[in-house]
């Protein structure tokens, strides 16, 4: 079945089974592998993408529910990989193994779009749905503050 949606600003038509999770449509069909599979149960946040501007779990959304909507993945934040959040992440060397980080960044970007100057509490609340096995939480918090400062 053909499903039309917009991924990172480009209209695409994907030939998929309607019950395929958006995550696998993004990774296997659109070939964008920055979005990761962690748990497949909406628990960890590795698969976070933006759907119509809101951050969501792509592992728990069927591709058919995304029909006609706008998906943004980590690849779509900036053509050159220099979105202010990505820059802050690099400068503070946030990642350890890196597996969770694209999901972390998608949550952080959504937070800063809503709240350009978040407090520690705002950050903890917004990032509470992202698990990092390597425990990079303190650097994530610093990087979000840094991205907020750099942007203002």
């Amino acid at each position, binding site marked *: 079945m053909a499903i039309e949606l917009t991924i990172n600003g480009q209209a695409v038509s994907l030939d998929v089974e*309607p*019950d395929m999770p958006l995550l696998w449509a993004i990774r296997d069909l659109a070939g964008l592998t920055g979005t990761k599979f962690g748990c497949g149960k909406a628990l960890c946040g590795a698969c976070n993408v933006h759907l119509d501007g809101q951050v969501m779990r792509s592992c*728990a959304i069927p591709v*058919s529910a995304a029909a006609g909507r706008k998906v943004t993945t980590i690849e779509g934040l900036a053509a050159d990989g220099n979105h202010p959040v990505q820059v802050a992440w690099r400068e503070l060397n946030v990642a350890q193994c890196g597996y969770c980080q694209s999901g972390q960044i998608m*949550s952080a970007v959504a937070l800063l779009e809503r709240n350009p100057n978040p407090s520690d509490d705002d950050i903890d609340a917004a990032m509470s*749905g992202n698990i990092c096995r390597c425990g990079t939480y303190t650097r994530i918090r610093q990087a979000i503050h840094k991205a907020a400062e750099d942007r203002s």
Partner: protein
Amino acid sequence: MGGWKNYHTPATVEEAIDVLHGYDGRARVIGGGTDLLVETRRGLRRPYEAMVDVSRIAGLNTISQTDDGIVIGCGVTHTEIVNDERIMRHGQCLAESCSVIGGPQVRNVGTLAGNVAHALPAGDGTIGLLALRGEVEIAGASGRRWVPAKDTFIGPGKSVIDRHREVLTRMRFEPAGNGEGSAFHRVMRPQGLCLPIISMAARLKIDGGSITAASISMGPVGPVPWFAEPAAKALVGGPPSQERFEKAVAIVLANVTLRTSKYRATEEYRSAMIRTYLPLILAAAAERAGAAR
């Protein structure tokens, strides 16, 4: 993801009901899918032939304040409820209960309607809506009817709503008037696929220093979310004092069946949490009632 062949996104309630009836029990209503999809994929449910997505029906994506009260459409997400000033002001326990569901990404997708229609014994949003004496509108082939939310639960995961043929279209509750306040609290292990140890909410109306109306809800304390009528009744007719709150606690404990679960909590612990937190929730509701408008 669950083996269904068709995914429908009807634009109206009538269309949704028509599509559902076309499948004669082989289609399932889906809201945000945060419960349903995880369950179907884990094989906890038999596969359906189709999903009927009711989260994008025109007119049911909003919260409004009408003569019938504060009305919440079935497409409204937990995030939208938490950010709504009218709900914060008139049904604070509902905003608080929705704010603890999952993480931000789950709240951006999951709906209150899905929480209530799922009929789990301790759905958080459900507990919040119950204390507000909320009602739900059920639409089916024979029309629409409003039912008190508390009368929709018939067992764990079992609802009077036929989720193959009917849609929970809207929910509503009476806005807080003068001297009314509400509060919610959940005791739980940190985040994860955890069910709460205990979730409780209360709404109080206070007039001239005396409680004139009260409702209490909680779960899991039995097969369905519990609207603790006998305990709430005992609060009415006297001041919002610790002594009176403890009387309500005693009635609650005499009426519930608390379970020991291997991973979560013992019966004793749950009972201690009710003794500790219910008076605090009642006190918070009373304080808000006093501070009200």
